[in-house]
């Protein structure tokens, strides 16, 4: 028994040391000016490639250290921001609202892009979402993603039950989802965005049966920039430099189309003609304006994806009152 007591004391001490080490590390790294930004894959993040290539944040704030991370899904970005490893994350509105609902101290800083987002099917027999059978599978990035919420919206409209197709879901990231759709096995539908969306539709027999705008009933910002309260309140000069860089990137894309296409073709490793075609799509737009938050929040709260919704837009977008 005596040895056990000693052993348990040792274990306690050991964990105590680890914890002490963790908190000490947290303190040491705040000295230098820095911003850590996470993005995901796809053309919707195009202005960020311009910021990277043209070093726009460094131009606005010369001493800053900018770290870019590319993460595969929104949950990972959210967790990294929660763990104080990231200051800015780019994601769709629904995952942002889920984090906000759970008490994360973050708000939207800006919009980034609107983008086509659509459900593509590979079967002649499926003309609308009503034609799915129990054998069909719908691939999308993850539950709670904007694609999932848009599908739920469409289901609610038709059946009054947003979860109607939930048991057909398969979680696959965009590239795997595209492969699965083109393989024509179990997966008969894929809810996706460009460039995957355009590539899929180029294949014979692939058809689009639902698009995001139609599902939500209005235009919405596809990707928004979200920052932590810490960045907004404690480092306003960094926040401003970041926002200005984003504005400049969007302007740059407008004014220097040739160079933009060159940069994007290199960043995404696709042909320049393809990039041009994608950027000219009528639904593809880059702007800092934020649209559609309240509509998503209404739907998500009504159907229990989140427990509370913002009373007004200021609750979820940074403004002067938060300083």
């Amino acid at each position, binding site marked *: 028994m005596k040895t*056990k007591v000693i052993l*348990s004391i040792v*274990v*306690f001490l050991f*964990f105590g040391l680890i*914890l002490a080490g*963790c*908190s000490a590390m947290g303190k040491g790294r705040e000295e230098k000016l820095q911003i850590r930004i996470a993005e995901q894959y796809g053309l919707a993040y195009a202005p960020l490639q311009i910021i990277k290539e043209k070093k726009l944040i460094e131009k606005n704030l010369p001493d800053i250290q900018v770290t870019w991370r590319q993460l595969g899904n*929104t*949950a990972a970005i*959210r967790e990294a921001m*929660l*763990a104080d490893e990231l200051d800015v994350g780019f994601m769709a509105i629904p*995952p942002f609202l*889920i*984090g906000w*609902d*759970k*008490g*994360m101290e973050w708000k939207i800083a800006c919009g980034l892009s609107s983008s086509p987002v659509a459900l593509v099917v590979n079967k002649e027999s499926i003309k609308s979402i009503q034609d799915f059978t129990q054998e069909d*599978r719908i*691939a999308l990035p*993850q*539950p*709670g*993603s904007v694609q999932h919420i848009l599908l739920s919206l469409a289901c609610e409209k038709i059946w009054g039950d947003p979860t109607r197709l*939930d*048991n057909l*879901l*398969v*979680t*696959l990231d965009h590239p*795997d989802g595209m*492969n*699965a759709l083109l*393989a024509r*096995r*179990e*997966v008969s539908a894929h809810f996706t965005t460009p460039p995957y969306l355009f590539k899929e539709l180029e294949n014979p027999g692939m058809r689009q049966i639902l698009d995001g705008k139609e599902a939500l009933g209005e235009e919405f910002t596809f990707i928004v920039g979200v920052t932590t309260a810490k960045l907004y309140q404690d480092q306003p000069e960094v926040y401003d430099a970041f926002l200005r860089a984003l504005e400049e990137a969007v302007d740059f894309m407008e004014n220097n189309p040739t160079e933009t296409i060159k940069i994007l073709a290199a960043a995404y490793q696709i042909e320049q003609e393809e990039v041009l075609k994608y950027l000219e799509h009528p639904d593809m737009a880059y702007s800092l304006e934020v649209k559609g938050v309240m509509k998503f929040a209404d739907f998500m709260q009504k159907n229990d*994806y989140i427990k509370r919704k913002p009373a007004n837009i200021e609750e979820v977008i940074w403004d002067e009152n938060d300083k």
Partner: protein
Amino acid sequence: MKMTNKTSSYQKIKTRLFWVIVILVLWEIVAQSGIFPAAIFPSLLVIARALENSIVSGEILLQTAFSLALILQGFLISLLAAILVSSLAAGNKMFNGLVDTLAAIAHPLPGIALLPLIIVWFGTGTTSILVIIVHSVIWPMILNIMTGFKAISPIYKEAGLNFGLNRFQIIKDILIPASLPYVLSGIRIGWARAWRALISAEMIFGAVGLKGGLGWYIFKQRVFMDTPGMFAGIFVIVLIGIIVEDYVFAAFEERTVKKWGMI
């Protein structure tokens, strides 16, 4: 003999319980200290409530049953295939070389690395998950069983031949019992690997079948940022792991290799 066995297993449960309590107390201290936000490190009470909710709604039970059924299937397929392949390899040098080469190629390959291929070949249904489980389990099992066969002194086999046993009887009555400690550790490794493969595959594939399994449950809690729910799912996995280790494997050991005085 029986008496000592009983006291030793009682002792084992006592130490196990002691350490479980120590870990739980530590957990609660860290959670209460507020070093980490509750969204990262929830207290035990909150986790217990999340677990209770999913048990009451029946969700987690259904998903556990689904996962267990899949795992047992994959595990049995692998076990039978591994015994068959190893036995064949024990009797034939050429085949032994082939199995050895295949194991060298496939054993270090994580199932998840094969995922994009598996999706294209087998789709995203239960078949694919079974393939990943079998792939993860079969190689360590084959390697263990083959090592076990090799460790048997040839005298036993020769004695068996002298008694006029045929090839099948030699495998059944000599090779397998004599290498049982190896087979058993192969089964243990296989079981752990099967769980890992299943949970990761489920977290990637999503709801296969009507409700999906435990991996899907955890993933769903993650994307909706329900950290206590995530821990509830992890707790169920740990619980099953401990039960299988302490009762199923231990009991099997008790009745075979320990009774025969092999370990």
